[in-house]
């Protein structure tokens, strides 16, 4: 098993190197002068030369790439040109939001998509099946940004002054702020905590949960509902379809008939014999949804005014903030590769026939 993980990591390295190279080249190819776009049109040639020298942008592209790789190997993602702050710090502040949003959306997609797909497969060609499949088709056809705006319109405006009202933007209501658990418990003062703890504390819902701040937790969840529902529709539809087709295939197997013939309880047949065997293609499809979710996060964060990684990347690209573009993309690509690795490894657990050498 360890050998397999090691092989997979080695195999991922060329792709990772390719990602680094492509990101670096793409970031450098964005037209426009970083000096002018950061310091403004009035920056003189002298000021610009000093700026480019300071940031190492006056060296050759190859030299810059080697320096960049060296920095990365030392865990140094560089400093944002716009904010004059380390990329890791910005990541620690903004990645948790995207993780929280993406994770909630995926959970939601599974919690609703899988049961719907199961009902659809078990009641094949029934009204419930047709309704689910029509719904799934509509779901994959819906623009995320449109659904987000429509949800905001319905829940923030039409349902105003009702218990169903939900906030259309931001992470927390005005006046509320999240206090990191390490400050509450007196471990560290603000800003002194290790990056990992800061990262965890910026997962607002989790932070509020462990510190027992129920009011804040409720508020954070309320703010997360609309964006995560908007983000979950496409994965939900895909998961429902895949669950259905995968289960339909397994239902026709001889061992399912045997299981029923020997008088097993229908619930056991469904969960142990059908669903368990239908899981493999389903997990693959769920793994593929990470990319869909991240792409959707760029749009969702824009609509709901959330300062997450997706929104920041989009802004960095338009502002030519190379270090942010590079740093964020690398982290996302690594996350992607790791998640795909986890999906591959899960096959061995789900299906003992797949022996991993």
């Amino acid at each position, binding site marked *: 098993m360890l050998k397999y993980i090691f092989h997979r990591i080695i195999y991922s390295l060329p792709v990772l190197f390719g990602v680094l190279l492509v990101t670096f080249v*793409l970031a450098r190819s964005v037209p426009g002068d970083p000096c002018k776009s950061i310091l403004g049109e009035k920056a003189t040639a002298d000021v610009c030369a000093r700026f480019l020298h300071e940031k190492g942008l006056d060296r050759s592209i190859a030299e810059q790439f080697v320096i960049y790789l060296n920095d990365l190997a030392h865990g140094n993602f560089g400093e944002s040109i716009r904010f004059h702050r380390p990329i890791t710090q910005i990541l620690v502040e903004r990645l948790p939001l995207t993780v929280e949003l993406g994770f909630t959306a995926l959970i939601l997609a599974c919690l609703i998509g899988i049961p719907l797909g199961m009902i659809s497969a078990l009641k094949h060609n029934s009204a419930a099946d047709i309704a689910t499949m029509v719904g799934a088709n509509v779901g994959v056809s819906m*623009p995320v940004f449109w659904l987000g705006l429509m949800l905001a319109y319905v829940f*923030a405006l039409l349902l105003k002054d009702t218990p169903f009202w939900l906030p259309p933007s931001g992470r927390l209501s005005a006046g509320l702020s999240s206090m990191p658990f390490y400050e509450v418990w007196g471990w560290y003062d603000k800003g002194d905590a290790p990056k990992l703890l800061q990262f965890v504390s910026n997962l607002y819902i989790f932070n509020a949960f462990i510190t027992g701040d129920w009011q804040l937790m409720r508020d954070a969840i309320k703010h997360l509902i609309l964006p995560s529902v908007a983000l979950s529709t496409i994965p939900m539809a895909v998961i429902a379809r895949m669950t259905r087709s995968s289960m339909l295939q397994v239902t026709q197997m001889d061992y399912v008939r045997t299981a029923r013939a020997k008088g097993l309880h229908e619930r056991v047949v469904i969960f142990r014999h059908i669903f368990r065997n239908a899981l493999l293609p389903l997990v693959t499809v769920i793994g593929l949804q990470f990319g869909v979710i991240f792409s959707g996060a760029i749009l969702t964060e824009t609509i709901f005014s959330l300062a997450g990684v997706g929104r920041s990347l989009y802004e960095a690209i338009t502002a030519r903030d190379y270090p942010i*573009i590079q740093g964020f*993309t690398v982290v996302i690509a690594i996350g992607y590769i790791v998640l795909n690795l986890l999906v591959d490894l899960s096959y061995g657990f789900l299906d003992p026939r797949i022996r991993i050498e």
Partner: protein
Amino acid sequence: MTAVKRLFRQHSGIAGMIILGVLVLTAVFAPIIAPYGPNEVLIGKENIRKRAKPCIHLLGCPADQPQHLAGVDGNVRDEFSRLVYGSRISIFIGFVTIGFAIITGTFLGTIAGYVGGTTSNIIMRTLDVVLAFPFLLLAIAIVAILGPGLVNAMMAIAIVNIPTYARVIRASVLSVREEEYITAALSIGAGHRRILLQHVLPNAFPPLIVLATLGIGTAILETAGLSFLGLGSQPPDPEWGAMLASERNQVFSAPHLVFLPGLAIMLTVLGFNLLGDGLRDALDPRLRL
């Protein structure tokens, strides 16, 4: 039963064809259907304020007011006319983007599958790198380099879609390559080009047709996303994603200007998805989901 006959027996295929039929007719007859030009500003021509709600005479709107089926946008243009003309752009986006992705993907996939070895490895690993990026992120980066605009956005979406087609074609080519009729063709002295064009590609195409139909919908959706971010179609083009984006801050005061372009995108994408489902069932029942 032929594939076409089977397609006509699929409910989803028929529904998809009806939706797309209406869309194509709308695009073709846009100048007849639309009461105004897509970019015709009505200031000074009609006594109407910007972002006016829809006025439909049949639904009780006073007859002395000019009829605007979908209301008026922020620049006092007839929204319905813009939606009608927008169908042309959507069809153009879908076919051109996926056409480009298929041609490039087929070329790369065929070479990778047929030649094999180092060439295949280089091509497939390069495509793996493209797949390692979330598609919208890469598309945004490409548009940032090429500059915002509809054609560049389409190019970006086409590029991020290439790996999918290349992989499918490569897999098909790999399996077809081992068939006996290829050995037979080789033994009678057929050249590589003839084998590729006459034997390998036609047999590798059916899965591609299904994928392409589904891909057109996705491409329209993705390009609309780029337009929504301001990177695709530029004003005053009546592109649905851009129309929606320009009014998104007015969603609370003029929801129809956000709702209708989004609905148009959704129906179009739905049409292609339904047709793709129907085609898949008709062409290759084994793939049936």
